[in-house]
């Protein structure tokens, strides 16, 4: 199976690789997946006092599509409010990266990582957590 050009591009030049201080109140961290399944994503957001995402970082253990999905997610997150960020759907990632059906789970994981990072931020800052979608993989 050949990878799409966009997957290869993100994989070769991943955006926003790195680590934010997970103990900071302005940082939300999502760690999803499991090593046994061959995918673990850690996605972090830095949020300002207006609930705007000013920075996003990721690290991913997984295949090229998983790495590309999380790289793309960090790009999309920056500049969005935490409410807007919730509207990012895994199928948007599938479309943008032209993921084949066997790789859809990578986009699902990225969506889970986004929601989980937002929840971490919300809970840290005294907001109700949003309901997490049921893991579909």
């Amino acid at each position, binding site marked *: 199976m050949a990878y799409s050009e966009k997957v290869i591009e993100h994989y070769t030049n991943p955006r926003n690789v790195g680590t934010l201080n997970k103990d900071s109140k302005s940082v939300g961290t999502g760690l999803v997946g499991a*090593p046994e399944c061959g995918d673990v994503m850690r996605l972090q957001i830095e949020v300002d006092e207006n609930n705007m995402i000013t920075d996003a970082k990721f690290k991913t253990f997984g*295949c090229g599509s*998983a790495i590309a999905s999380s790289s793309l997610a960090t790009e999309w997150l920056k500049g969005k409010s935490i409410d807007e960020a919730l509207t990012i759907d895994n199928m948007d990632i599938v479309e943008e990266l032209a993921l084949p059906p066997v790789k859809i789970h990578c986009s699902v994981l990225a969506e889970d990582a986004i929601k989980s990072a937002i929840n971490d931020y919300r809970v840290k800052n005294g907001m109700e957590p949003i309901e997490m979608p049921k893991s579909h993989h």
Partner: protein
Amino acid sequence: MELPIYLDNNATTPLDPRVLEAMLPYFTNKFGNAASRNHAFGWVAEEGVDYAREQVAKLIGCTEKEVIFTSGATEADNLGIKGVFEMYQDKGNHIITATTEHKAVLDTCKHLEKLGAKVTYLKVKEDGLIDLQELEAAMTEQTILVTIMYGNNEIGVIQPIKEISAIAHKFGALFMTDATQAVGKIPVDVNADGIDLMAFSAHKMYGPKGVGVLYVRRKNPRVKVTAQIDGGGHERGMRSGTLNVPGIVGLGKACELCRLEMDEEAKRLSTLRDKLENALTQLEESYVNGNTAHRLPHVANISFKYVEGEGLMMAMKDLAVSSGSACTSASLEPSYVLKSLGLSDDLAHSSIRYGLGRFTTEEEIDYAIENTKKAVNHLRDLSPLWEMFKEGVDLSKIEWAEH
């Protein structure tokens, strides 16, 4: 040096140009049907097949009459196992095999279970070898066949074939081996090893795809298998179908080349393999999978902890290797062979198999070493697991989301 570099010789091997040369006339002016007994075209084709049969027999130490040509090792495995089960059903219905066998053996056994066979799947030890005492304990009066592979396709370990065949014979059972990865790579002698049936194929030893052999012993004991393909009664009635003459000629030539060049080739390949392995295990948290004393000369299977195999292969785009990770398959299950060794799923997902071959050069191995190191380091920089490991976090204590 040309890129990409082919290091997947356990999947298939390139055709040796000398093999191709031997085959070519049999596509054109020597095109006859080897079963045509009444004219020169048939005789010429038959001569080619007879000579190939001799070349095959010489490589594995049997007689020409014991060589049954098939379409490949999968068919040979099917014919051997199903053929014995059908032929010897008055004697018993029990078959013993191992969990690390090729799917051609495992799925055939599963099929026979539906038809009334009892199958024991022996577990392997963490080095990939079966436990001989467990084998002996599993033998019963009903056991008609023990089928254990010679060399493993993923990790290259070589089973103690002589000891296994001795146990099978002690209990009056036949011994069969899928020797697809071993024949042509290391000395395999059906008499010295006590083998009654043996499957292998041409394309793993620099011959063409679509042709293989089932060796069926004719003496001490005389083994019979029930044909699985009916028709013109070719191959002593065990495998009907017009013979693939060019393929068979190519297989014969491939066997001859392996017989003549095997010793030197095995030394050269194990030296290159060791170089690769020694260099790559210098990387932190990298492990060789399988027994390293009893194994084929041309395979290295290494797990690079905290990076995922498929992602890793993508970073090594100039290397054609394979991974025990199965992120592309619908099941997402990593290699069942590696799991049989007791490897945790994450280590199985982190494995890469390097399969060296006749045309692998030292320059290519040097390139593979550098390329792999770079890729592993790159992916570890991206890996949250590597970061946690470096921070001293115990990953087994984390509650991972169910997947």
